[in-house]
């Protein structure tokens, strides 16, 4: 059996709807468990390569693990637990937030906006000064 790919396992758990908290914590625990199994096999006299292979077999397949985790509904995000509700709530929440989005975007990019504002103000002042000079030159002739 191949060595377990824990990064892939985390991605698959998240994809099956497990909350990020439980997905990452489980993967960390499982990784430690795997290391313990490897250590135990090495202590039994196995070579490092055989110990890792034996530990992977004892740990089981990642597919089985994802299935077992996904069977526990309480470990899933609310959108996976109540998909019908999520279909209604998400669009409504988006509609409610949409009018406020320019304000949120402005707050998020306030430094850029301030820079642009100051630049525009500077450009307007220079233009006004030039127009004033031109007007005065016409009047004073």
């Amino acid at each position, binding site marked *: 059996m191949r060595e377990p790919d824990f990064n892939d396992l985390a991605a698959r758990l998240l994809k099956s709807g497990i909350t990020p908290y*439980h997905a990452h*914590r*489980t993967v*960390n*625990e*499982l990784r*430690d*468990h795997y*290391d*313990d*199994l490897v250590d135990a096999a090495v202590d039994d006299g196995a070579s490092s390569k055989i110990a890792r292979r034996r530990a992977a077999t*004892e*740990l*089981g397949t990642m597919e*089985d*693990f994802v299935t*077992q*985790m996904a*069977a*526990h509904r*309480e*470990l899933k995000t609310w959108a996976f637990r109540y998909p019908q509700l999520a279909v209604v709530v998400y669009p409504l929440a988006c509609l409610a937030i949409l009018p406020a989005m320019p304000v949120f975007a402005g707050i998020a990019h306030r430094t850029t906006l301030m820079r642009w504002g100051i630049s525009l103000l500077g450009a307007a002042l220079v233009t006004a000064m030039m127009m004033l000079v031109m007007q005065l030159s016409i009047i004073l002739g």
Partner: protein
Amino acid sequence: MAQSNPPFMSGVPELLLLRLLHEQEMYGYELVRSIKQVTKEAISLGEGVIYPVLHSLERNGALKSRRKAVSGRTRVYYSLTKKGRDRLAKLRNDWSRIQGGVATALESGANA
């Protein structure tokens, strides 16, 4: 070599985990080893099977967990809460009732 667990084992991992954690706090690997040991390898849970059960029990408030650094590794130790002790008492009663019922049925079947 431990025999494979039959399909009617559903719920047994939860009972065993609660029972073991009633004694002392433990982490995953330790729990799997303890289950093999206390059941004299009659029950052998898959190494990864216990984590979904542990997380589920914690989510339901029956267990609490804490991180503890041991030999350069951060272990997650689980222990029983008040709710977990109540759950254990209930499961234990259910188990005794079912076990008694099945034993009676088997005996009466044998005598028939």
